[in-house]
């Protein structure tokens, strides 16, 4: 048991709130896998099963403050010349879902010009961006999966701490 930052009360909760369940509609099955807020960005990850055996892992990244942007998914892992960090959603390990295509973004990037350095960085416009990863889905049994997200929110005046390869354990229930 640890104490919270004020030294007032025991801290028992973990930082990530995982919610599993919620099959809510006919047609594509939408399964909420995880939601959390970290370093000024709200993240929701959903598994959308379009048809048996095929689906999409969909991550929505919403910066909490206006003026904050997220960097392109195509940025190198360590940024361009060291600057910036990519926005990514990956399947690390799973017996039930496997990546079956390239990660796609809901919005095109724009070039953020870093005048002092004379260079451009591709960022998503202010507001939420949704990344979608085609996946193959095994539906016969409930299995565990480990996902990974990476992102960093910056404005033109401040960068919040990056979230690098944050591992998220989820359970994919069998499709009824």
């Amino acid at each position: 048991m640890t104490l919270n930052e004020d030294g007032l009360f025991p801290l028992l909760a973990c930082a990530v709130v995982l919610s599993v369940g919620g099959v809510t509609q006919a047609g594509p099955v939408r399964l909420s896998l995880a939601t959390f807020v970290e370093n000024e960005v709200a993240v929701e990850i959903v598994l959308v099963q379009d048809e048996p055996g095929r689906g999409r892992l969909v991550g929505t990244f919403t910066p909490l403050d206006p003026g904050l942007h997220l960097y392109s998914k195509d940025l190198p892992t360590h940024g361009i010349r060291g600057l910036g960090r990519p926005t990514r959603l990956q399947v690390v390990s799973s017996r039930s879902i496997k990546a079956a295509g390239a990660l796609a973004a809901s919005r095109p990037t724009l070039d953020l010009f870093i005048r002092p350095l004379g260079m451009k960085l591709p960022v998503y416009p202010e507001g939420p961006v949704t990344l979608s990863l085609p996946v193959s889905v095994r539906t016969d049994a409930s299995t565990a999966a480990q996902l990974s997200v990476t992102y960093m929110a910056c404005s033109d005046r401040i960068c919040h701490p990056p979230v690098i390869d944050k591992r998220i354990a989820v359970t994919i229930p069998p499709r009824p």
Partner: protein
Amino acid sequence: MTIGLTSCAGLGLLSLGGPYVSHANARADIQTALLEAQADHKFVLLDFGANWCAPCHALRALFHTPHAASYLLATFHLVYIDVGNFNRNGDVARKYGSATWPGIPALIVLASSGEVIGFVTGKALSPVSSGDDVVRLLSAAVDRTASTGSALPRPAVELDPAQIRTSADTLGVRAAGESGGTFVFKLEVGSDSVTSTIVSSWHDTLLQRALTVYDGLSLRPKEVWDSTDAEQVHLTYAAGRVRGTRVSPNPPGPPDTVNFDLATDPSTVDRRSVPFIVPRLALVPGTTAVIPIFDSWTLRTHPVRLVTGDRTRLALPAGTVDAYRIDVTGDLRNLPQTWYVSADLPRRTLRSEWPRHTVLESAQ
């Protein structure tokens, strides 16, 4: 890495490697800069950042504009402190008020004595777009006669005078469903001052003991003592400044001691004033008050919103009572909170919901 700003090349402006050196000894660099500052009567400017941080590069470029460069050279010894991926020099950042919260770059101004006298971080950097802006902000930080507003004390928020009376509230504490704590808030009204005491414990362990002395007329805090296992603090509020000392553990080394003398709005109240203010608000449903609250963790003042809700029914272990709900939100670490105070007089704190499933509740 400490730099005397003797040349632009020394700042590594166009080197994307940048000035934030991973293997530098930040504590030693700060000590060196303080010694140099004592010798030449300058200040020390701590620049927390990272070479991957574009805004850090952008700010550094402004340092090199002619006006800013000459001002910085004449006024400061500059120490660049690499935060890595926020996994480096965290102890140094914590010592100087969680300097890297909520992000980087973050500038901290020290007097040559080591006293913290200014912050330029977060939203304060938003209007900085020129070297002149840099000079203006840092000039304000080193002006130790300055305050950020009127020198006339005034209440931070409208309180109900009838509620300023000697009283005590004892609340049970549950954390993540587990009971075992108590939170005791006492108020003593004297002839020219009001004193509040917070004592919180978990089972048999004392977690916090805080004492705040308020001016009896303005009800603004004058002096605060607080002791937890995370920090020991002594603060004084006067003339638009907050001065004090914070001692915090830094295992396995000796505790970190930091002194500070910071400009703040005269209406600023202390973080520990929330349990004093909320039950004593002039409760008008639908009203919102915004008060500046100084946090000794971050050594910064944060706007905090108090929103008074409608009269409602609240279920307590002893029965259901009428209460007012007050939502407290802002950038303090233990917010948001939801408070319920009794509609009946004398007013009492009935329940307070804190982050991480922590609930304070009256047993009566």
